């Protein structure tokens, strides 16, 4: 057991730190278009220096980083408060899925423009009637010669208005059992048959979209992993969503917790006492310090288990579920510390508090994640 970085890992971190120190592009500009161009430029810069797709194999333009280096990479970017990259979904989910299930031709075609942010990716999984029960989705794809004609509706589609490619799961065989009749397509978003409508959320912004698809065309060669194999390919995408993002999320919590402690020190609670002197607040802060340490430790223990045993397991589901609870209680404590100021929406904590409501829903609801843990890790009987 050695919980310090090896010399090679330290060298990797130091190289990244000094690069980030010299190349941090500063604050993101206001406005959706400007912010997106800024993120695209930032990703190009990362790519130019070999910092895009660090986990990808070298032959596909990545860095072939070890799992620990990937963890360090995700931690350091958040620690440096670096802006988001433009092609988050392409890098974290789309690329790894194409690498795992795509043909050599598909890898050559799709991977380079993901890295360079030339082609942005979005994810068309959820539908209005198919959230947690993803396999019940109804978007239909019908073969016409060497083309597929697709109609249906998708929801919670991040970056749809910037995207060139959509990771689209559609039903190709309505007669097969629900998990078997699905196929994973890459749909070109630049066609008139695809309409994007922003979805305004409880924070007032529109991070997500609805997608209306009316007889869109997808050529046969855009299937990933073979016709009828869409469920297995979709699971690969979801596993990557839950595991690779974990390290960034846990550092995000650590940073927010540091800010929260500062917030508690500077907020007057009552006569002569600031919030951080209040025994109940101290207990809750200490519990958050413990839980945020657990997020870090569990992530690293999971990583060591992968290094010993091979594949990431459903333990990844523990981290995302736990993170959502910690982040929610962190933002709830921030509101309690704010006192009557919690009623005003000027405070950044108000935004964080509202945004955190989605944490236990997005990327797999807590209830679904608990089902996965119960069935796959504990071996309990399937829920019927």
């Amino acid at each position: 057991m050695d919980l310090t970085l090896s010399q090679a890992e330290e060298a990797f971190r130091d190289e990244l730190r000094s690069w980030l120190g010299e190349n941090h592009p500063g604050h993101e500009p206001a406005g959706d278009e400007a912010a997106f161009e800024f993120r695209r430029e930032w990703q190009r810069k990362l790519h130019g220096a070999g910092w895009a797709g660090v986990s990808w194999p070298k032959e596909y333009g990545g860095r072939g980083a070890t799992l620990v280096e990937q963890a360090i990479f995700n931690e350091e970017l958040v620690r440096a408060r670096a802006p988001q990259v433009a092609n988050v979904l392409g890098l974290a989910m789309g690329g790894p899925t194409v690498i795992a299930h795509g043909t050599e031709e598909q890898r050559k075609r799709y991977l380079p423009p993901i890295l360079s942010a030339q082609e942005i990716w979005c994810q068309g999984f959820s539908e209005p009637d198919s959230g947690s029960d993803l396999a019940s989705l109804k978007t239909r794809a019908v073969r016409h010669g060497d083309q597929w004609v697709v109609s249906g509706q998708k929801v919670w589609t991040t970056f749809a208005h910037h995207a060139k490619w959509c990771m689209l799961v559609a039903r190709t065989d309505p007669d097969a059992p629900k998990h078997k009749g699905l196929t994973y397509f890459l749909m070109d978003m630049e066609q008139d048959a695809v309409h994007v409508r922003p979805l305004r959320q409880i924070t007032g912004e529109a991070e997500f979209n609805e997608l209306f698809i009316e007889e869109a065309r997808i050529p046969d060669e855009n299937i990933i992993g073979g016709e009828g194999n869409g469920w297995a390919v979709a699971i690969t995408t979801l596993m990557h969503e839950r595991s690779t993002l974990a390290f960034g999320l846990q550092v995000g919590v650590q940073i927010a917790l540091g800010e929260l402690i500062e917030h508690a020190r500077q907020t007057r609670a009552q006569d002569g006492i600031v919030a951080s002197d209040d025994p109940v607040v101290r207990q809750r802060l200490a519990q958050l310090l413990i839980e945020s340490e657990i997020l870090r430790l569990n992530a690293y223990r999971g990583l060591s288990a992968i290094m010993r045993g091979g594949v990431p397991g459903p333990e990844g589901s523990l981290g995302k579920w736990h993170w959502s609870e910690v982040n929610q209680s962190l933002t709830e404590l921030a509101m309690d510390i704010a006192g009557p100021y919690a009623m005003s929406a000027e405070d950044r904590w108000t935004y964080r508090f509202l945004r955190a409501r989605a944490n236990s829903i997005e990327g797999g609801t807590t209830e679904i994640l608990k089902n996965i843990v119960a069935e796959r890790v504990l071996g309990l009987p399937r829920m019927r």
Partner: protein
Amino acid sequence: MNFDFTDDQHAIKRTAREFLSARYKPETVRELAADERGFTDQQWSELVQLGWPGVIVPEAHGGLGLGAVELVVIFEEMGYALAPSPLFSDVCAALLLAASGTDEQRERWLGPLAAGECRGTLAVWDEHAGWAPDRSEVEPAGGALAATKIAVPDAATADFLLVAAADSRHYLLELGNSSTEILSVPSLDQTRKLYTVKLAGAPAQPLAHAPGPVRHAYAAIITALAAENVGVAQRAMEMAVQYAKDRKQFDRPIGSYQAVSHRCAQMLLEVESARSLCYWAAWALDHQPETALRAASMAKAYASDAGFRVTSSALQVHGGIGFTWEHDLHFFLKRAKANAHAFGDARWHRDRVAALAEV
């Protein structure tokens, strides 16, 4: 970065699991719980053969000279087996002696401790002294102690006591002396025997005044205790999961209901989280002392809560049978709850976490 045991540590864990599950079957644990002494000489000598009483005793004194990680591995397994034994109280004494015994005291006691020829225990808590586990108001007068200590484990079978006194000092007091009264008290956890010890001017020798090493020793003690709760909770979780698979109601295994299966998933999260904190704290005790106190308090705070929550939740999964004396679960729940209150409860350690983080 490698958050995994070495091959040797894995081997210790395997040996401990095999040995303890063979020797401390549920019916044995039950018998020992009902027994006044709580262990047999045969059981003690088997632990001695494994070298466990000397796990942290330096090799120069005849111990295994291992670290906190190995200590945690052993006590996680002791908790999993719920093995009734004076090993924990004995190792507490060894940790404190190693940390702050004078050269003569270390020379006199550590060898026999490691060889299992004698046993020590720790008398920490003054009667009616409140919650703080690190404060004693006992002031020795002329090399003699007059005090009443509560919840002293295994005092009736120990050869000496280490008595916590004011100003983080400890005194070594040999037992078998007429000025010391040892009263058996019923313990919440029948698998660990507790006593009230009344010292009426008993002669005692001071250990060296070494607040730093003593803090470090206590951090190792609470980490081992937290690890015990990890093992206890792991076993209770396994019992609950098995029961949820076997028990049918409304023609289905109860584990197919989310009200039950989500309870079990929650147990896994808490057991794994407590385990991560314990292993980290143990590693820090061995390799990163500047982090060790914070890590140990985090582990103790979390494992105190998790140990009770998991065993209590496992009882709920078992329904009525879990509330009976015949079922073994209550022994696990009682150990977890008793451990939660030893050496500072969750609230006390969270306070310390906040202080160490300079909140």
